[in-house]
């Protein structure tokens, strides 16, 4: 914790008054963490790659937590009048299943890829604000732990992930569960917002020379759109959560009907966030698929600008369709009509994506690796989810379907089919990049097929039980309302439960594959014959990512360095002119002379830690609020005082060579 550096004995000669950059002595209590190994290397890192890996690992853990909750839900519903869970526990279970999967798995898993890949894909050495990046990570982790701590502190939230007022008010939900939920989401919300700003600045300002916006890899594009969505959606839910926090903890009356409030206020606020949230979930996966399909089709993405603009259009229109979640809420026929039509409009850019993916493969040279299988799986499952979505964009039809299992089926096809499958495609595609080892392809295929079968068995029958009138969020269903025909609820609920367990096995196969692949030999440097910049360096990349900042001449830069068009005139004929290894070796040979990276820091984790302390304080004691605030102020002060790069004397042993800073040092805030 160096507070300030004393300049060298001899003052700077320039006389311009600029302080000398090389410090020789510092005041402070602790040395800055500079370890490159051990737990400190991870806890205090500001390296976007380590942060990305931690995001991914923790998100994966929450995936299994959420999955366990899902299995308990399915067990309860396997038969009529289930006895596995009490009504109270069931309500907590489905609330936390959704919360965990959305906020603690899919979003951070997408953040993991964005963190790891976006700087690599744009040829940067790190994100724009490395310590802010670490802050986002730790806020997410502590927020996730905070929410889940409610399980052992009197019960989790029980109002559903949509937490409709006034059912979320204290008289109707007297435990602290909702408070944990509100405060926990506020914490992870800060994480998302900080991360969004960070990545937007990174993409807009730190692209390699020659990389215009329309030469950006598509995953980075979708990442950018996602972050912009987060930037505008998170404040809305934050406001809503604050209102609810004050309603519950400080006697405010924002949702108290007897004081003249209208409970629909919450619904509007929630869904103005909640609908863009859907695109926040699926757009990163769309980006991944749009990377994977061209690589394994050996063709560029078909209609790159269309895919980019349809992504942007989805993001934009996504803010104008929130009320389609409220077709039954009593908005009046005109509002309902407007939102129904707007909702249909958003199907168009979504359709464009499916068309473009198909046409990317058209005329290609398709290799069915596991990553490709997951990508194709996404197209299939998301198409189903999208089409069932159209059926309830039709508002009168939706009044029969909303809040039934049909909707549950629909959004699982969208979020699992359109989101999670894409994330798994990304895992298999980028695993050799991130860890330098291939995942076992045979187990990968098992992983894929078991998951696909499990998913369709689990979520497919939900269409049926939904259309047969089984509402969501019921802790039991009854024989009286089950029917006896082919579409009876009993059979299909049971099938769905079986499917959920198969899906669980499929997910575990992924973990098994990681274990089975632990001793695989180092992966080839360019295992997939890839196309974009993240492959223009070693696997795993060095801490500074690129030995030389690449200069970009085309979309799919890496491909065009390996292949040249030797055809004449209109005749195109691509011939390999270099292997990936040769291209990378060439980069290494021309390494930049001076590379300075931002140094690790204690402060992000300390500052992140203070926030759950504050939050516990809101629930339990104002003394804790004071303690949290004190830690936060200390951390902010330490953060502000800390220079971006550690003093040389803090390295052990001090690095040799020229200390003059180079221009590439990332801006550190």
């Amino acid at each position, binding site marked *: 914790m160096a507070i300030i550096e004393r300049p060298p004995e001899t003052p700077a000669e320039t006389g311009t008054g600029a302080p000398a950059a090389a410090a020789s002595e510092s005041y402070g209590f602790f040395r800055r963490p500079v370890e490159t190994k051990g737990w400190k290397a991870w806890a205090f890192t500001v390296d976007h790659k380590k942060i990305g890996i931690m995001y991914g690992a923790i998100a994966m853990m929450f995936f299994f937590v959420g999955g366990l909750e899902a299995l308990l839900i399915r067990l309860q519903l396997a038969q009529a009048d289930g006895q596995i869970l009490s009504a109270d526990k069931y309500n907590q279970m489905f609330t936390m299943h959704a919360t965990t999967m959305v906020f603690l798995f899919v979003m951070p898993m997408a953040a993991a890829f964005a963190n790891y890949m976006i700087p690599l894909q744009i040829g940067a050495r790190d994100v724009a604000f490395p310590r802010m990046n670490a802050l986002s990570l730790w806020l997410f982790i502590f927020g996730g732990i905070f929410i889940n701590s409610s399980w052992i502190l009197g019960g989790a939230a029980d109002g559903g992930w949509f937490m409709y007022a006034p059912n979320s008010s204290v008289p109707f939900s007297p435990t602290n569960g909702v408070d944990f939920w509100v405060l926990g989401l506020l914490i992870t919300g800060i994480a998302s917002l900080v991360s969004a700003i960070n990545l937007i600045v990174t993409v807009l300002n730190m692209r390699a020379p020659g990389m215009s916006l329309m030469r950006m890899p598509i995953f980075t594009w979708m990442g950018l759109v996602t972050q912009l969505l987060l930037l505008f959606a998170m404040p809305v839910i934050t406001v809503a959560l604050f209102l609810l926090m004050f309603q519950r903890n400080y006697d405010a009356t924002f949702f108290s009907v007897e004081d003249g409030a209208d*409970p629909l206020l919450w619904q509007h606020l929630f869904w103005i966030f909640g609908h863009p949230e859907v695109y926040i979930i699926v757009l990163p996966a769309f980006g991944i698929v749009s990377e994977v399909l061209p690589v394994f089709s050996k063709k560029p993405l*078909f209609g790159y600008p*269309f895919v980019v603009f349809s992504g942007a259009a989805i993001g934009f229109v996504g803010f104008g369709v929130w009320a389609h979640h409220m077709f039954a809420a009593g908005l009046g026929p005109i509002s309902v009509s407007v939102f129904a039509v707007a909702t249909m409009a958003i199907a168009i850019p979504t359709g464009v994506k499916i068309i473009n993916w198909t*046409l990317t493969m058209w005329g290609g040279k398709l290799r069915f690796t596991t990553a490709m299988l997951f990508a194709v799986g996404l197209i299939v499952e998301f198409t189903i989810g999208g089409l069932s979505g159209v059926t309830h964009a039709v508002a009168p039809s939706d009044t029969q379907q909303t809040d039934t299992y049909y909707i549950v089926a629909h959004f699982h096809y969208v979020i699992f089919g359109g989101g999670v499958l894409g994330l798994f495609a990304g895992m298999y595609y980028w695993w050799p990049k991130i860890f330098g080892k291939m995942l076992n392809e045979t187990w990968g295929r098992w992983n894929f097929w078991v998951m696909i079968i499990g998913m369709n068995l689990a979520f497919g029958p939900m269409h049926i039980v939904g259309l*047969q009138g*089984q509402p969501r*969020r019921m802790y039991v269903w009854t024989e009286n309302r089950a029917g006896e025909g082919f579409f009876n609820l009993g059979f299909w609920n049971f099938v769905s439960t079986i499917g959920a367990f198969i899906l669980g096995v499929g997910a575990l196969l992924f973990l098994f594959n990681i274990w089975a692949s632990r001793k695989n030999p180092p992966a080839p440097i360019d295992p997939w014959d890839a196309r974009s910049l993240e492959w223009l360096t070693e696997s795993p990349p060095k801490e500074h990512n690129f030995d030389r900042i690449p200069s970009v001449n085309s979309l799919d830069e890496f491909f065009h360095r390996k292949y040249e068009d030797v055809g004449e005139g209109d005749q195109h004929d691509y011939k390999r002119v270099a292997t990936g290894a040769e291209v990378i070796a060439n980069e290494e040979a021309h390494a930049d002379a001076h590379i300075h990276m931002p140094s690790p820091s204690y402060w992000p984790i300390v500052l992140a830690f203070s926030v759950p302390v504050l939050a516990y304080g809101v629930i339990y004691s104002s003394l804790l609020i004071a303690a949290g605030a004190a830690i936060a102020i200390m951390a902010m002060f330490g953060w502000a005082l800390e220079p971006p790069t550690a003093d040389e004397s803090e390295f052990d042993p001090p690095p040799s060579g020229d200390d003059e800073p180079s221009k590439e040092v990332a801006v550190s805030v």
Partner: protein
Amino acid sequence: METTSTVNKMSRRIRIGLIAALGLAVAGCAQDAPQDTFDPAGENAQKIQDLQVPIFILAGVVGLIVLSVLTFVLIRFRDRGQAIPEQSHGNPMLEIVLTIIPALILIGISIPTVGTILALSETDDTECIINVTGQQWWWEVDYPVQDGCGGISDVIITSGQMVIPTGTEVLVRGTSRDVIHSWWIPRLNGKKDMVPGRVHNVRLQADEPGIYAGQCTEFCGLSHANMRMEVIAMDPDDFETWKAGQMAEYVAPEEGTLAAEGEATFIAQCSRCHQVNGLEDDDGNPIIARPDLQVYSGATPNLSWLMTRNTFAGASWDLLTPECRADVWDASPETVGEKYLEGVSPECLNSVDFREWLRNAPAKKPMYTDPTELEETGGLPRGMPDLGLGEDQIDQLVAYLLERQ
């Protein structure tokens, strides 16, 4: 649209189920599911049906086209050692055409959609107005004084089951006392949220007599799953009989019977919360229940004519034994009204569930009645607490309540 049930060929059924899930076109054929959304029994649900069936078919067809093309691509263009394909970045004309086609389809869908939305919001032709009020976890139904519904001269209050005349345009005006609930009778119309502080309308009309099941579909807390309701449609003559029964004078049980003891027990134990119209205290003053002082949401079911209904406790349990229930619920449209009007006879009473309920209600249906959980509601329970009634008291109450018809 009829499918017979065969339980033996499991694998085949799974396969068919998958196809159903993928194609989405064949959903909604089960004859016997009481909440089937593809089995309209009135003109409002029929309007939705007329809209959603073509859309499901359309979605299925589009899905089949997309997936066929995809399958073709996956087979035709798999890697068979062909040369590296041309690095073409797309074909804007094709792209635009393929964008316009779905746009046209969606415009085609949106026109009838808007038309149906507007048609379903019409209220000009209303012939009968019925109020419903949602509360954790049951529905109250009241019929305001009006010339509609064939004339109602005195307010009728019931709960859990709404009785309507067939062929009549009924407008349900709904609200809630606590949290948001949703009124949904799938075979008669789509659902509508009932929001505290707001009044929302939903049309109901039944072509044929019958019992149409429904379920609260907006998550409303602990016992959301146990908040059900039924609409009983009967022909106008039967409806007149039913109304007369509901507006009848209170008849006290005969002296010396078990039911008379039950009346005293009811007054002592139940009348603080539950209204029985016409009940009088020793001084001859009418007994007015004050649920607004006893339970958090401020109301309890009116028990004046409990045994004219055939479900209780949020329509979650039957007042009839399974055989008697089947007799009423499966009756033909011609006889269902008549059978419903027979009410609950002592032989038909489902005394197992009913007595369990009287013995300890929160053990049967999860409710917030534990005093340790009531700090935030000023000690007022949400739902019926355990009254600690003895078996003899329960006998008396059952005898008394059996006469409430």
